[in-house]
């Protein structure tokens, strides 16, 4: 009997050892995926991801692009923009994003506005025509920019006044990053989900450390980093005046438009980064910070209990008061 017990114990040890090897390999197993959605490239890096997780992430992106892109015919946003003052029934998620957009617009005093679409349609930052609006065109479009006039009805209906349009480009990627992170939680050991300027990290690296996320140097070469921050289970969202721009008559125009003037924001900030657990909020607030400028941006972040770092046009970094308690900034 004693020998049988010894044999059973030995077998159990073997089982544990083999199972241990299996788990270690799964932790280190790395997969990556690339997709093109929302006019940008999306990259996913998974550590120990369950089978099928990558496919779920791509399927989610494709679904949200079909709902939220203003350039996809038949999307919720496309139908809202073409409704001519009529109420439009939308997906509950589209409705919820618009509800949050209205809240953030109010919190930022309109510095973030999804109803900027009639103004942004007058500019061409990507097509190569360098088109910019005339004063008359802006005078006609600016009264249509007001998120408080988005009417969200019961049963997921959305109504805009005739002529008004929405563009969720400043908030949708954040929402999708949140949903992608939720898909990953509990189904992988770690993940880095990148949606252009929105990075969401889930879990840890295989060696147990956090993920390093580089913050773009607004004044530097394409892709050059100003500093690096190490994060666990957090989103790092950066907006900057370097993303899409053109020069005309010696003036540089960038894509972050001031909803008050209709022109590129001319604040003292060149880049704004927000770090938190809510990528949708971070996305919208980072954009608003550029419009508001350093002083108001820091006040906004504090009022919303958010941490972030701002890079001014002289390249100086300004952090929120609580930033240093959470993260160490490393120069590159």
């Amino acid at each position, binding site marked *: 009997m004693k020998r049988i017990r010894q044999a*059973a114990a030995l*077998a159990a040890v073997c089982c544990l050892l083999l199972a241990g090897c299996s788990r270690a*390999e799964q932790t280190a197993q790395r*997969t*990556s995926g690339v997709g093109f959605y929302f006019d940008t*490239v999306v990259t996913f890096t998974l550590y120990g991801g369950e089978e099928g997780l990558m496919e779920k992430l791509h399927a989610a992106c494709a679904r949200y692009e079909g709902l939220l892109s203003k350039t996809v015919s038949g999307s919720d946003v496309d139908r809202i923009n073409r409704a001519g003052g009529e109420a439009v029934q939308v997906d509950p998620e589209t409705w919820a994003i618009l509800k949050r957009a209205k809240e953030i617009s109010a919190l930022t005093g309109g510095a973030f506005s999804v109803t900027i679409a009639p103004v942004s349609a007058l500019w061409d930052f990507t097509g190569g025509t360098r088109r910019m609006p005339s004063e008359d065109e802006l005078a006609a479009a600016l009264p249509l920019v007001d998120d408080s006039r988005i009417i969200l009805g019961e049963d997921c209906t959305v109504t805009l006044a005739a002529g008004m349009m929405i563009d969720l480009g400043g908030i949708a990627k954040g929402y999708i990053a949140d949903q992608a992170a939720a898909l990953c939680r509990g189904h992988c050991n770690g993940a880095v989900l990148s949606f252009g300027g929105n990075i969401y990290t889930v879990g840890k690296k295989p060696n147990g450390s956090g993920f390093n996320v580089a913050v773009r140097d607004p004044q530097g070469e*394409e892709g050059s980093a100003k500093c690096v921050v190490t994060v666990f289970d957090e989103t790092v969202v950066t907006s900057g005046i370097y993303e899409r721009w053109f020069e005309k008559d010696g003036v540089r125009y960038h894509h972050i438009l001031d909803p008050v003037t209709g022109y590129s924001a001319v604040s003292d900030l060149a880049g704004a980064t927000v770090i938190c657990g809510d990528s949708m909020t971070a996305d919208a607030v980072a954009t608003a910070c550029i419009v508001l400028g350093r002083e108001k941006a820091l006040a906004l972040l504090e009022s919303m209990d958010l941490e972030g770092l701002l890079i001014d046009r002289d390249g100086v970094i300004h952090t929120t008061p609580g930033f240093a308690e959470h993260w160490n900034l490393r120069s*590159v």
Partner: protein
Amino acid sequence: MKQHKRWLIPLLLVVLAAAAAGWFLTQRPAPQRLDEDTVIITVNGREYLRVPLSQPQTVTVSQESGAVNVIEITPEGAVMKSSTCENQLCVHMGEVTRDNWEWRVNGAFIICLPNRVTVELAVKEE
């Protein structure tokens, strides 16, 4: 005593076989399990080519649209040498290497958005 020994060996074999079967069953497909640091090139989101850094070479990606990207793979990393894209941002992203991939804004990736070509340095992490 001898009777016990006769039982012991089959018992051990059965338990070990069960453990081994369990181990194999828990092994999931590992499409990117890396034996060494590797450059992964994708076109339109699909994997186009995978080149270990131990095999440095120049890769030309030519698409039916006329888009052409030339990628140089070195023993340390990869760089977009040229691209037919208009904005040339991918060419200006510089080299991604074993030493800098964690400190770059685009991480381990070089991205040519207009031509939908990506170059990833997949570093073997412990």
